[in-house]
């Protein structure tokens, strides 16, 4: 395989970023790509910074993506997105799921929180293409919050070049084999995410 594709994922523990990475890894593996997936578990429990690195296409590759090298960044929280800027390759795609998990100090007005414009400016400076999607774009699932991460996964496959590398059917196959129950709900969220990309904002 003469292609390679590096994906840098960031978010907050509890958002299901790990699951996105695991599904992409498995789908890529089943599509014949050499895979190295490195989630940083460390102290990333619920509510803490979480990152993961997925490197596709090379038989022997170090787990860490060098700075300025990620073809795609998937950021699931606006503030944490800033920690991924340095890894974006010039010309790469920066997919921002613009959800806001305000730390306590921010809620109390003791610390500032970045604006969407500030993040956009950084992506532009890093010569990336920013695609922003908002949690409000996610349709409610029978009145309950849907599977946010699978919605984002659907968005990623429909809106970024990763979609031409990984067939959506392959990803659906992985989703179907991953869970014993709730498959329908997860597939619905994934498909809704794919459809939502017709009108990105921001």
């Amino acid at each position, binding site marked *: 395989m003469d292609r390679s594709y590096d994906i840098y994922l960031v978010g907050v523990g509890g958002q299901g970023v790990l699951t996105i990475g695991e599904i992409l890894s498995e789908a890529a593996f089943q599509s014949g790509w*050499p895979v190295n997936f490195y*989630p940083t578990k460390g102290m990333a429990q619920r509510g*803490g910074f979480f990152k993961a690195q997925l490197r596709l296409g090379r038989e022997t*590759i170090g787990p860490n993506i060098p700075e300025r090298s990620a073809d795609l960044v998937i950021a699931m929280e606006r503030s944490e997105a800033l920690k991924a*800027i*340095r890894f974006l390759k010039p010309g790469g795609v920066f997919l921002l799921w613009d959800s806001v998990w305000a730390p306590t100090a921010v809620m*109390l007005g003791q610390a500032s929180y*970045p604006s969407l414009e500030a993040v956009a400016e950084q992506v532009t400076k890093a010569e990336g293409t920013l695609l922003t999607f908002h949690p409000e774009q996610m349709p409610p699932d029978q009145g309950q919050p849907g599977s946010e991460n699978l919605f984002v996964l659907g968005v990623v496959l429909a809106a970024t070049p990763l979609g031409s590398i990984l067939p959506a059917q392959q990803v659906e196959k992985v989703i179907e084999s991953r869970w014993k129950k709730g498959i329908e709900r997860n597939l619905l969220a994934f498909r809704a995410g794919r459809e939502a990309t017709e009108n990105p904002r921001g």
Partner: protein
Amino acid sequence: MPNKQIISGNEALALGALVGGASVITGYPGTPSSEAIGYLLRNPSPGVHVEWSTNEKVALEIAAGAAWAGQRALATMKMSGLNVAYDSLISFAYSGCTGGLVVYVADDPGATAGMAEQDSRGFALMADLPMLEPATVEEVYRLIPKAFQLSEKVGTPVFVRMVTALSHSHAAVEVQTEFTPLRREPQLIRDITKYTKAGAAICLAQHRDLIQRLSNAEEAIREMGINHLLIAPKRGLGVIVCGLTASYLEEAMVALLPFNLDRTGISVLRLVSTHPFPEQEARTLLDHCDQILVLEELEPYIETALIVAARRYGFPGPIRGKLDGNLSRVGEYGTREVVKGLAQALNIPLSDSLFSGLAADNMAAPRPITVCAGCPHRGTYIAINQAIRKLKLKKDAVMVTGDIGCTILGMNPPFDTVWNEVSMGASLGLAQGYVWSGIQTPVIATIGDSTFFHAGIPSLINAVQHQASLTLIILDNGWTAMTGMQVNPGTAIGAQSGGHRLDLAHIIPTLGVDWFYQVDPYDLKATTEALIDALPRAGVKVILARRECAIQSIRQTGRAGRVRQQAENCNLCKLCITTTGCPAIHLTESSIVIDQALCNGCALCAQICAREAIVREEG
């Protein structure tokens, strides 16, 4: 039947041990090593004994006992655990072993789990033991059986060292799915010259044997083809890479191709055995090259050994790495470091922007980690803070020593309760030091249940013996939680898979403590009152703050309760947020909002709220 699947480095190690015939596997949880035993406990293999031991020293002793009886055995730990186990390890090194004994140690360059960047290769040097370091997940799987072979061939314990980025990496490996443990007839060998340290003569003889075994290991490693030497057609640069660092070399070379990098002039020695130093391969490389670049993460062990070898052979060229100041001893390695090393050696001018991106990290909101919604430790920290206030003491005048695990999160806002963090069990020793320093205010030590079993008990006994007036709070959530919910001696009987549960509420009073209290940290009033009663008293006082970890308890029996907002009562005083810092409480313009998806119903916020804007739902 072989089966290609995605596994982690830790799982590859576990599976490799099964392929290698290990029948006794022990360890103590520690990031990034924990998933090896975790995998084996989730996927039990008949005839293989697997356990979480009380601490790493115990784990190693069990594995070594099995290896002395002729079985193949594995002990797993993080680098901090190796420090604990080392006392026994050095003796095992002197004695050697009959069955294969492999010690897996996981280091954490970059300190992703927040401890020391300890380079455990130093222990291999100090103990004269062979150490193997795989570069990829697949190599982990293939190397472990060889580690057992090497151990038995030479009669020595063998280290396998991995780093976080490898232990936690996931890659596709073709693995066996059925295993036959190498259950040998256990043997009892009486030989005090080998298995005791009875007298200097025996110890010195063992030391000689140890050095001889290390030399034998070097030869065995060469015969087994564990290291890889690729001599280039042309003289020029020799590169030594070891362990995970090797996985970055190819990407770095490709990145330098546009700068006219000539690969035909680059010879590579890829070391999997980082100890003993492979003299012969190093010699071949020195003979063929004009200069050598050593690429290794953390400490310059290989570089130092190479400089010694080069001096002995009269090698005239430069040896590049960390000792010349070019590469750093701090932090995780990556492609950028490898490129930097190659560029400096080959005089390639690099643009500053190569692998150096736009740093925007400091624009991100600070996100100090805190305990989960519903965590019982939250109640304990709040109670400590309240008791200090109610006793009219200043918070800055009351030492609260901290320990390892989730309990240390009391150091962060909004609690700012815990002052320090050292090592497993250290909270109690430190507290005694503060007592004997002459501090007049109460001294408090905090520790989790697993940490207390691991290394806290000897220190509590010490406090009792010497009558150090202090208050120990054991935050007992029933699990080794921070490393991912492993069992410990105090875990409920149902989770012990056949093991026996030891109840701290029975053990502590028998240790001769002066005062013993047991409280539920969800009951803020009772917990605070216990502290107010205990703190001014003389003697050793222990408060067992017991409530199961919320994550586990939700999984097994559902949430603890339910709280409801009465928004009309909320005057936005924010006391609930500033006191609890609970991630399930959000702030809107008109009131606070409880995220019912996150809330565990611990009702600490309801106990804090003075206006009944948050109330506990009964029933």
